[in-house]
């Protein structure tokens, strides 16, 4: 089965360790208000139906650039939407010895997703908010499954990175971050926590698509806000990075 690919970034340095081939897949079940890639949301949106062999070939060609730490990252969109079609590709990548990251919101759960996660070397789990009401306001969905997916990763000894987009007045509440910290503090499988600053680089895409950008009035984080959040996260986690 063909995989719907939105685009590639062959020098990915922010989505997992080392240098990575990042494959942005088309289609997402969330509707995050701040989404920087609105063009990847619609599963029927403009994308390229790609033979998994082509992706495998790209990754194999690029292997010398991966070094000791790098590899391939599937991002999106929400890659687990295409879990079933990704499984054979993941198997082939593993056979080639290529390190696989999966950047997911953790909200989709079925047997295919479970198998995909099993084949993944490192999960980048995006938790958008800990407070479910605020999570719904921000994404249009509950965070319940995301937290369950995290628990599954922990129980199955699957290493993951926790990623948190800091949107001022949407996901910047101290009490929510504290609650998240307290919840995940005992987790052994969280190798690293990344705070992703909120940015408006995707706004022009909304205009181009004739969509209204709802967070127009939200300013980007100040360095002080980021530092404050980092210190707060560090009370719960050892390795905290601001991307």
């Amino acid at each position, binding site marked *: 089965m063909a995989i719907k690919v939105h*685009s*590639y*970034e*062959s*020098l*990915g*340095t*922010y989505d997992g360790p*080392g*240098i990575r*081939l990042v494959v*942005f897949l088309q289609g997402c079940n969330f509707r995050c208000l701040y989404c920087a890639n609105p063009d990847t949301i619609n599963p029927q949106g403009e994308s390229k139906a790609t033979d998994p062999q082509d992706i495998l070939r*790209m990754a194999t*060609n*690029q292997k*010398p*650039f*991966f*070094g*000791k*730490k*790098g590899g391939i990252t599937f991002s999106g969109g929400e890659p687990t939407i295409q879990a079933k079609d990704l499984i054979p590709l993941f198997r082939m990548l593993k056979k080639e010895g290529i390190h696989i990251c999966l950047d997911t919101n953790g909200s989709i759960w079925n047997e295919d997703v479970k198998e995909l996660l099993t084949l993944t070397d490192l999960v980048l789990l995006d938790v958008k908010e800990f407070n479910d009401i605020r999570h719904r306001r921000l994404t249009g969905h509950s965070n319940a499954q995301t937290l369950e997916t995290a628990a599954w990763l922990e129980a199955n000894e699957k290493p993951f990175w926790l990623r948190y987009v800091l949107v001022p007045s949407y996901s910047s509440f101290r009490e929510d971050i504290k609650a998240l910290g307290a919840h995940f503090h005992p987790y052994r499988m969280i190798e690293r926590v990344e705070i992703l600053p909120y940015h408006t680089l995707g706004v022009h895409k909304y205009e181009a698509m004739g969509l209204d950008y709802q967070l127009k009035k939200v300013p980007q984080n100040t360095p002080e806000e980021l530092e404050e959040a980092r210190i707060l996260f560090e009370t719960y986690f050892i390795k905290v*990075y*601001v*991307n």
Partner: protein
Amino acid sequence: MTMNFKPGRWNHHVDVTDFVKTNITPYVGNASFLTGPTERTKAVWNKCLEALAEERANNGVRSLDPSTVSTITSFAPGYIDKNNEVIVGLQTDEVLRRAIKPFGGIKVVEKACRENGTEVDPKVKDIFTHYRKTHNDGVFDAYTEEIRSFRSLGFLTGLPDNYARGRIIGDYRRLALYGLDRLIEAKQDDLRHLTSPMTDERIRLREEVMEQIKALKEIKILGEQYGLDLSRPAETAQEAVQWVYMAYLAAVKEQDGAAMSLGNVSSFLDIYIEYDLAHGTLDEAHAQELIDQFVIKLRMVRHLRMQAYTDIFAGDPTWVTESIGGRFNDGRVKVTKTSFRFLQTLYNLGPSPEPNLTVLWSPQLPEGFKDFCAQVSIDTSSIQYENDDLMREVRGSDDYGIACCVSYQDIGRHIQFFGARCNLAKALLLAINGGRCENTGTVMVKDIPVLSNDELNFEEVLANYKKVLKEMARVYNDAMNIIHYMHDKYYYEKAQMAFVDTDPEINLAYGVAGMSIAVDSLSAIKYAKVKARRNDIGLTEGFDIEGEFPCFGNDDDRVDHLAVDLIYYFDEELKKLPVYKHAKPTLSILTITSNVMYGKKTGATPDGRAKGVAFAPGANPMHGRDKNGAVASLSSVAKLRYRDSQDGISNTFSIVPKSLGVDRESRIENLVTLMDGYFVKGAHHLNVNVLNREMLEDAMEHPEKYPQLTIRVSGYAVNFIKLSREHQLEVISRSFHERM
């Protein structure tokens, strides 16, 4: 006091390679031993900064002597700050004062003087007009109508017919290791063996060797002017640096070749420094001082140029290329502490385009050195990298340097004839226009069939293109043979050749420009529908493109292989032609900054590029067409075969710091990994810029804030604020790899 080094073949023959191999102390540690500049160094460099400010204020030329013809000995000694100079010697009697060298061409000198607000001395003009012929006159006497037409219409451009060819590197280390007396003796011995029969070649070589001996004798006088006894070998580390510099200084006094490269002196000098350190006569601060002060001198080298030259080689480059690192064929690394010390000058003195520091990269180099290189690149954007494993494998020597931008040269045993470049994109338009120039309608190549249809057919265009390239190779070869014949005759590099083996191997370095434009155009014709729009005399004015086509720079074999095939074909055509002095032809994919001027002279192309738009530099993918990120772009370039372009494949890579990673540590690590990957894939060369576009834009508006802002262009580095506005805009328009 003589220094006691490990003996070897070098004791009985002039063989610096053997000396280095026998005595080198490879260093596998990190950069923590390095020191800052001494007070003396700071004092000298501050004087230079003042002089550089004056130079900028005075339109790029601080001062100029229009009367004294520059020879090895014609200028009185000059100093920057005599009491603080540890290494002495200037090209003229004053720092940043330029000299005339009319052996290359009196008209060139006249023009350059006039453009700088002065007139060349009438006596000099009289001599070089009526009594002494120049290189430039010789070439134009012999040029055919055909060559003139290919040259003036922009098919062959930047030929070294109105400036000196450069590219020859003397083994300047020889002066330190042997001293002049021994070198003169060796050359005299060579001359004695050049006996009958007296063929043209033999006579010419005898005359050349005699010229070299005279140059060596003049260098002795140059040394005396500065109170140095160069007749004997260097006896301390300070003398070794000074001796090497004197040999190089003689070259840049006598010649103003486009590229006057230095070779690979750092690890040679390290042997002397290690010796003195071990004997307690030198400490680290003073070892660094020697290198800092040597580098200051190299940064002050200047040549007098005319505007037409600056159009193709922007930013007043001198290409004092110094090659650092690499490995021996036996697997030992050539990295020494002095490799680090050379890079450290970019901190101690600030970033600078010269000397053109070139790291010979191998994934096998010590991690500490690789990390330091990446760090210096991130901080200064002043280094370029070349694939040491690849060059040693294909070319053979493990004691080589880089001439000019990217070109391998086996030091002391090989030289090069520089050949500028021809325009592959414009040649493609000949194939589409029945052999006529797209701008003027001039018939350049006869018997090229007119295309059957305005909708271009790939096979038909390709067949024509091959015929055009064959003819272009022929004319190009003719021009090269004439140029190098005349350069030898009227402007022979006696000071440099005095430090090269008698009768060395020679490469004739051809070049191409506009490769990615030609290749994307072929791809458009092959994979999309391209229709030519023609004017009333049938010349193409533009192209209508329907459908998509793959572009070079996306790791897509469909188009990347068109590039590989094109270069292979043209290189093979060039190899079929007879070459002056039996030189071996090589080919480069390198533009320097001529990609702007070449673009200007080239009409609209089938890839959708409009008339006059600058080409991408060197082997770079065209700006903005590499859609899949930097690694895909690098992978495409890595496919070009070094075996088919042994003069070098230049790729200029610009990335914003953030794109390399989240923090300094990961940026260094990722840059190292990126280069390991690129070179493992068989790529040849990489210029690395780590810069923000905004900084360059700000520097255009406020140059005074960025006096030392350095950026790698194509195979060399320039001071950004010295570029013309047009070149600055072209640099800014290039692909900067940014995060999505």
